């Protein structure tokens, strides 16, 4: 356990000094600041006003940015470290492979989740000072959603890093994974279903398997229970699960996918050449 925390701490310190982290923090801090600046808390959409309006917009933007950011930075730094000889040196020290791999994940997870969460927490703090009502239930669920989103894409990123031997290959694979998730968002599914070339069950299964779609549906379901703004596949899914059931599924499935990906990544990592 000591080795795991030492590795996690090491990864946190390395990340805090990396440029990607500074940009990452700036992006999420900047989003919240801009949303306040443009008076989003005073505008109304679908009955939402105040902080809940801001949180809805924030999570939508986060869903667009976080996955690709986490995927690319994770594979870049892990595969880059391997190529640059960091693994060769640090893995010559007496640290177990499990402590090293999971320690890196823990450290990276803290670094990835903290700015996103702190930006949201900052918004809540500012709203409290301004006397704007805080929707705690929404805030809690969105926090959980962001936590599993980070876990999911970090796990996938670590799996790609374990498989790819070069930074270029890892980056390419990460981009391809993200693009695939993006392509199978609801709009594409809708088009496919309209054309009637695949069974609706298959389209629904795809939507259920795509973590991006799962997050999107879960986030929207909070303020649009009928899912009018979404396509039919999301509606069918919600009908199957119910609102609460889907909210739970939206947390459990991506978290499982992330942990499973990371676990497969770990076994591949320990089975092959380390540097």
């Amino acid at each position: 356990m000591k080795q795991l925390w030492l590795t996690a701490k090491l990864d946190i310190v390395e990340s805090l000094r990396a440029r990607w982290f500074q940009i990452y923090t700036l992006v999420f801090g900047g989003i919240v600041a801009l949303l306040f600046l443009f008076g989003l808390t005073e505008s109304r959409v679908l009955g939402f006003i105040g902080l809940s309006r801001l949180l809805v917009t924030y999570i939508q933007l986060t869903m667009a940015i976080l996955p690709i950011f986490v995927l690319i930075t994770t594979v870049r730094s892990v595969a880059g470290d391997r190529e640059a000889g960091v693994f060769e040196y640090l893995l010559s020290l007496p640290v177990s492979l499990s402590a090293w791999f999971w320690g890196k994940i823990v450290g990276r997870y803290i670094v990835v989740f903290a700015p996103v969460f702190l930006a949201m927490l900052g918004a809540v703090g500012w709203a409290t000072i301004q006397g704007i009502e805080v929707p705690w239930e929404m805030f809690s669920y969105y926090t959980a959603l962001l936590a599993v989103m980070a876990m999911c894409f970090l796990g996938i990123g670590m799996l790609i890093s374990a498989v790819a031997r070069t930074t270029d290959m890892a980056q390419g694979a990460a981009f391809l994974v993200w693009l695939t998730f993006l392509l199978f968002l609801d709009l594409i599914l809708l088009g496919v279903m309209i054309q009637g070339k695949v069974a609706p069950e298959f389209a629904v299964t795809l939507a259920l398997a795509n973590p991006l779609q799962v997050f999107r549906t879960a986030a929207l379901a909070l303020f649009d229970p009928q899912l009018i703004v979404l396509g039919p596949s999301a509606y069918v899914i919600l009908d199957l699960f119910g609102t609460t059931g889907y909210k739970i599924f939206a947390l459990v499935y991506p978290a499982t996918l992330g942990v499973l990906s990371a676990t497969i990544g770990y076994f591949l990592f320990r089975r092959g050449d380390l540097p």
Partner: protein
Amino acid sequence: MIKFSNVAKDFRKARVLDGISLDIGIGERVALIGSNGAGKTTLIRCLLGEYTHDGEVTINGLDPRNNRTQVLGTIGFVPQLPPPLKMPVGQLIDFSAELCGTDPQRIHDIAKRLGLDIDAILTRQFVRLSGGMKQKLLIAIALGREAKVLVMDEPAANLDPEARKIFFDLLAERQNEATMIISSHRLDEVSSLVNRVIEMDLGKVVLDDRVADDVSLASTLNCRIVVKRAEPAFAKAIGAWKFAGSDDGLIWEGSIAGADRLRFHGMVARYIALVNDISLTEVTN
């Protein structure tokens, strides 16, 4: 102590190690030499448990891959190229010391002996240090613990003569209790440090020779060189070895580490037409 039994390694069907079998005992100082692509680094990585391979590698009967913390706790490793770590020097020392169960002060002390003031660079990023500073720090981390095996890849390449002398002293202090494997693609860089030479080529051991152990790692050679005329290029080269010259630039005196004699001769050989007289006297410390 260290046993390689029929070790083989392929990279995409290319055979990089081809049935290596070696026994290296305690107290042996091995020069692992060979041209680029000979398989030296791959062999070292197999020894460190970083590569999967056919055959068997054991250190004191233990497989370094399956008993990582136990085996690597006894190995001090200095890589040829320092890793581009962004962490501060202080954290790297604390991280290594904690993993290896040693007191960070030991690392500080060895670095100080090598001429590196750790306190002044504690908060500086490792990657921002000069090549020589990085090398000294990595040596200090490797030697600042109870390592029974020292694996070093061109360890003295970035060190100035003074630091090299101290480095040889540090190795001399360990020579009876530790096994050393020093990798280099040039024998003259390491020949005086070792008592066994293993040459590799195309993944095979092509030479395994025990050499006379006449040179004490801790010895010093007092040297006096007389040149025909004062020559700025020679003055600069000999000045790098901390030699003092006479006012007319014709007589130069200084001392060199015994283990550095071949390297020193290599430098002097470049100006051999200029040399009138040279004397070397060994002083064992």
